[in-house]
């Protein structure tokens, strides 16, 4: 399927009496976005940048996983390893003011969007220096100024909230797009259906991205839904649709960018299903017995990070150069862990803060 025709937009449109479609913000005002379709979309520079970002996420989480087994991190820890290309592609196509709203599997987006690895690690450690001061933990990474509008832990519950961000963008005609990520397991709960219908009805500037990693905890898609292709639900909500396997970060960025710009300029929300895979268990406590070695291996062999590495080597990069990048990244994550380790716990009074705005 060629990239330009990938996005299916034939879903029936609201009739004449639907709320008037506001004109898209004049392109002049629209801030420049990365020319993800230009020839140099695969330039060594871009590839290296994307690769390094993916690698940072992976090393961050490997470090966090170690800390977890050492008992330095508690509670739930949902790793993103295997899905990094999605967060990296997303962060790379966003313009300032665009928002990412996602699930508890949120570390990747935080790193990709430029949150400090130390602050992220400190959040996992429940330290005062954490991304949200240690009160949210792994499931609630938020960095408003960086476009990370969070980390939500009730499945599907964030979908209407993300639609609300898009509603505000339309209300303010600010030309910003909200990208709402959800697992395929979140496609069968009420809040998701309600949020998507409202987005389609009001033609909100939002792209719903299903990270279909084939399982909701231990439940394969076939025991969640009678249909395998979840974009079959797009038409019923008048959402544009796209669906593809995530093995190349550059292609992923381009396909997502298409949906995002379509939402930005044509007030047409979209539902994009990404076929991906988490290499680890659902969370640290999950041995993942429900998946065969073969299946896991097969997906590992399509690891977008590795795929990118191969491209870099083909582009003339040397093993040594790659190793140098890795060492740098590893050093960054070791430092992040050290920072988290040495950071102070939150002040006792902190527990009384922010339940209401008056609390200080």
């Amino acid at each position, binding site marked *: 399927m060629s990239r330009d025709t990938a996005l299916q937009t034939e879903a029936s449109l609201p009739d004449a009496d639907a*709320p*008037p479609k506001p004109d898209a913000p004049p392109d002049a005002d629209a801030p420049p976005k990365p020319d993800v379709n230009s020839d140099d979309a695969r330039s060594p520079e871009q590839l290296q940048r994307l690769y390094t970002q993916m690698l940072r996420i992976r090393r961050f989480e490997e470090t966090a996983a170690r800390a977890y087994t050492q008992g330095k991190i508690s509670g739930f820890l949902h790793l993103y390893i295997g899905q990094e290309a999605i967060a990296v592609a997303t962060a790379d196509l966003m313009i300032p003011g665009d928002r990412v709203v996602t699930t508890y599997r949120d570390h990747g987006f935080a790193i990709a969007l430029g949150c400090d690895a130390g602050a992220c690690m400190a959040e996992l450690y429940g330290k005062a220096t954490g*991304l*949200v*001061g240690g*009160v*949210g933990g792994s499931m*609630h990474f*938020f*960095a*408003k100024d960086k476009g990370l*509008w*969070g980390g*939500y*832990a*009730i499945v599907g*519950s*964030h*979908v*209407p*909230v*993300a*639609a*609300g*961000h*898009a*509603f*505000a*963008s339309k*209300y*303010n005609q600010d030309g910003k797009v909200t990208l709402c990520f959800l697992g395929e397991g979140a496609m069968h709960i*009420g*809040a998701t259906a*309600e*949020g998507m*219908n*409202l987005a389609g*009805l009001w033609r909100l500037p939002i792209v719903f991205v299903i990270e279909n990693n084939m399982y909701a905890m231990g439940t394969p898609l076939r025991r969640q839904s009678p249909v395998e292709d979840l974009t079959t639900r797009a038409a019923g909500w008048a959402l544009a649709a796209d669906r593809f396997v995530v093995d190349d970060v550059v292609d992923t960025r381009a396909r997502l960018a298409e949906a995002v710009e379509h939402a930005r300029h044509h007030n047409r929300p979209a539902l994009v299903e990404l076929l991906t895979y988490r290499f680890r268990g659902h969370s640290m406590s999950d041995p993942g017995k429900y998946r065969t070695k073969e299946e896991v291996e097969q997906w590992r062999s399509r690891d977008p990070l590795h795929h990118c590495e191969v491209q870099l080597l083909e582009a003339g990069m040397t093993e040594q150069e790659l190793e140098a990048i890795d060492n740098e990244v590893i050093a960054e994550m070791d430092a992040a862990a050290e920072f988290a380790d040495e950071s102070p716990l939150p002040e006792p009074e902190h527990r009384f*803060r*922010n*339940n*209401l*705005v*008056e609390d200080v």
Partner: protein
Amino acid sequence: MASLQIREALRAAIDEEMARDERVFVMGEEVGYYDGAYKVTEGLLTKYGERRVVDTPIAEAGFAGVGIGAAMCGLRPIIEFMTFNFSAVAFDQILNNAAKIRQLTGGQFTLPIVFRGPNGAAHMLSSTHSQAFESFYCGFPGVKVVSVATPYDAKGLLKSAVRDDNPIIFFESEIMYANRGEVPDEEYLIPIGKADIKRACGEASKGNIPITVITWGQGVSVALAAAELAAKEGLDCEVIDLRTLRPLDDEAVLTSVRKTNRVILVYHGWPYGGTGAELSDRIQRLAFDHLDAPVLRVCYEDVNMPYAENLEQLVLPTAQKALEALREVAYRKV
């Protein structure tokens, strides 16, 4: 001073705040083209247009969530639940998003949002449509809960609610929308968190036993009617309308109780837990040595509301039931 119905007072509050602040908008079922199921939002669509008066499909969780998301962006949504009975399907949005997002983001976000609509029983609407939700919405941190009983309070408190930077649950009542009362022409605000004495009592004396009657919402008129009956028997009620159920105005409650040493609670709601039980707990804890009698409650019977008119009347709190409770705390054998 104009005489307004509660629905008109609420409408005036919304209208003034929308005129004052472009970030304020109204969203809910039938709030626009239909002018509101109970006509609270009548005329607002014509005045402010579809952008700011937003009709929704039947999707409470959906539009409650949209309101929450919009509030995170700095807008100030007023979300109307046609009745709070229908907010049960949006419970997760209020409990897990509205009440927690500020806390779990370490204060990165502010949620200036009002969820408003009728609460409690109306008349012969049967069990699913005759529920008092304050026991649910007062039971967790992260929100404020308001309940109004007069046009004056309705306008002043709704305006404060719209200007408040916290999520607010704002209770009204179908059967009170038409109630009239004086409302000042000039703008005014009523602080959230402050109770109001709707009827003061005199000093204790031989023939006069002061009793504190704590009430809110639909309970207020019942309490005032009971006070009239009781007055004939030398039972002198100080009727305190809480107006805000969370946070509770402990000071107003305790000041009265320390003076009267007797308390009853009169409200539309179920007996188990909730604001009623919370008040008993606080009073027995914070005014233990001041109580001459146990705190008594006059509220719904602990059953699902039946449709039949005669049964509904028996389940609801009445002035007569309140009078008996007043006699009891005054140790007037009946």
